[in-house]
């Protein structure tokens, strides 16, 4: 039960590389960085601001370790996020053909999350999740009992 495209909405989001694919606010579309803080209604994304010279060359935002970075708070509702999950998670996605399996197992969340997990590169899987699926207290997202939508 590692971090796979299926478990991602219930798993830890802090620390994952993320990109805002869609948002009600056009200025937030395309934001790329790492999730650093999660609250019930927002994700705070640490975005690297490359120095001018690097920006011209199209510096890779996800790669920069030092240098300026700022934290942008993005509301979960009204946004669509694309998480990049690495290592064994991607292999599992390839093996199981995630999209079809998701449709069989959980018909209800299909429209949001089945778009996810097209594999690019060796061991990176991209998972697209509608932000409204993540609306929950961070600590309670994992739970499956009660009236939880994560069942």
């Amino acid at each position, binding site marked *: *039960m590692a*971090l796979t495209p299926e478990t991602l909405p219930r798993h*830890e989001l802090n*620390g994952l590389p993320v990109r805002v694919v869609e948002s009600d606010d056009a200025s937030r579309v395309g934001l790329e960085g790492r999730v650093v803080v999660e609250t019930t209604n927002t994700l705070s994304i640490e975005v690297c601001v490359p120095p001018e010279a690097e920006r011209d060359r199209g510096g890779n935002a996800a790669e920069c370790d030092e240098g300026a970075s700022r934290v942008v708070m993005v509301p979960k509702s009204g946004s669509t996020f694309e998480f990049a999950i690495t290592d064994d998670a991607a292999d599992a996605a390839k093996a199981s053909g995630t999209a079809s399996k998701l449709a069989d197992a959980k018909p209800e969340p299909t429209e949001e999350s089945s778009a996810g997990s097209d594999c690019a590169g060796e061991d990176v899987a991209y998972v697209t999740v509608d932000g409204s699926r993540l609306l929950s207290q*961070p*600590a309670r997202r994992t*739970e499956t009992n009660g009236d939880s939508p994560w069942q």
Partner: protein
Amino acid sequence: MWRRQKHADVTVAAERIDRLHELARAAAADGDTDRARYYVRLARRIAERNRLALPREFRRFTCDACDAYLRPGRNARVRTRDGHVVITCDCGAQARYPYEE
């Protein structure tokens, strides 16, 4: 470990705790103490909600009183006494752990 053999969502919770441990350690190493504290608190909350015991390493490297991630020499004093180690956080809280010779 027994906690890994439990129910599937409990496994997710245990993994979240492990990830948060790493994040807290990294944030503390970067000098970002408040963010480390946030990760520690979240991990504690997840353990509490899912009735999991926190890993021993996590327990020993966090302050029970202020949730700081402890880095011996930086924000924690480590002193050996007769039969036990005393770890003092910068907030003043002390924790004692026994050791065998």
